């Protein structure tokens, strides 16, 4: 009997709920999120919360001052950053910094090139921003983050399922299979399901959950179809450019329907690559952030 999606989800949950110390986002993110949902909170509340985590606070300032935002004046305090960038940007920056911190704590593993993987995430974010811009999406910061977060389930597998990870690496060494296929063979499910489970646990917005779930098959997206299409193409462009390490030596299936919905023709690739690489240059701060304190 074929396993239905719901049954699969239940099985995955059973496996994952047994994991000890699953990755969590720093407390500061949850607190900032809480403040933003409360109309009575002030910039002062949020600034104090961010400052309570010095590692995050210093990264927030670095990113706010980077070419990624491109503000001409120098932003020197968290309060200043909140005033200039606004609540929603601050929340996004705190989320991306939190993910960097998370990477630092769970990232190190012999079986997985986590720095290369982080580059893949940032490159996918940068290409997502450009493709999203071409598709007319207004909130490009969110599209960048959706790209940045699309694959985090992979790192959970390599950190928490060492035996299966060995199997995955063996399958991939053959050169023909994608990491998603190898994960399914070794584990019965893949990084897309793990990310979905994790992001639900983290209480992330539906956009990030759906993009993580659907980026290899955007046709099944219901809530965030366009962004899923965008990240699907961005993931393939980042891999095609050979930037970073997505986990395998192949390419996932390119969905022609995504290209069609976004009206991208083969002749557009050159321009998207030019723009995407320039955007990646402006996003370098995210790559550097992993190496800095």
């Amino acid at each position: 009997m074929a396993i239905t999606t719901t049954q699969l989800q239940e099985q995955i949950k059973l496996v994952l709920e047994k994991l000890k110390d699953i990755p969590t986002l720093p407390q500061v993110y949850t607190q900032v999120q809480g403040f933003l949902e409360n109309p009575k909170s002030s910039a002062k509340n949020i600034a104090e919360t961010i400052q309570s985590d010095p590692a995050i606070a210093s990264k927030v300032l670095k990113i706010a001052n980077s070419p990624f935002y491109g503000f001409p004046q120098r932003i020197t305090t968290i309060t200043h950053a909140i005033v200039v960038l606004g609540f929603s940007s601050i929340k996004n920056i705190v989320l991306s910094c939190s993910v960097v911190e998370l990477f630092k704590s769970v990232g190190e593993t012999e079986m997985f090139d986590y720095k290369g993987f982080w580059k893949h995430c940032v490159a996918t974010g940068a290409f997502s921003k450009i493709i999203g811009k071409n598709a007319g999406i207004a909130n490009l910061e969110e599209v960048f983050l959706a790209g940045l977060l699309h694959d985090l389930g992979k790192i959970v597998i390599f950190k928490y399922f060492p035996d299966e990870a060995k199997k995955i690496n063996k399958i991939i060494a053959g050169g023909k299979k994608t990491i998603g296929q190898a994960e399914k063979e070794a584990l019965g499910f893949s990084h897309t399901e793990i990310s979905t489970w994790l992001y639900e646990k983290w209480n992330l917005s539906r956009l990030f959950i759906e993009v993580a779930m659907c980026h290899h098959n955007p046709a099944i997206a219901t809530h965030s179809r366009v962004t899923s299409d965008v990240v699907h193409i961005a993931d393939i462009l980042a891999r095609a450019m050979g930037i970073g390490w997505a986990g395998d030596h192949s390419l996932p299936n390119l969905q022609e329907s995504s290209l069609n919905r976004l009206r991208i023709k083969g002749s557009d690739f050159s321009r998207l690559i030019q723009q995407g690489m320039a955007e990646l240059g402006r996003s370098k701060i995210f790559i550097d952030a992993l190496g800095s304190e």
Partner: protein
Amino acid sequence: MIPKDLSDVQEGDVLAQNVMDFTGNLLVNKGAKLTQQLILQLQSRGIRKVIIESNDPEALKLFEDQKAQSISKIEKIFTDFEGNNSLMELKKAVISYYKNNYVDF
């Protein structure tokens, strides 16, 4: 085509790639010859590195080697997709990008 710190460039060096500022605005077109004034202007805009044309055989060899290595990596990524038109167009675009740009990621 080689990357050089702005503090090491010399007057007369020719830009091999466009120079953009922090926000992504074009500052100087590729092909421009660097003058003392231009170098100072770029420094004041926070630019630290530029890509310049080079005749230095060692530097050129390094760049050509890096390019060849990247392109063979790209060829490998696409080996199984000869029949897919979109992916073949993508491959063409990627290789042409590597031929014309210095990539340091």
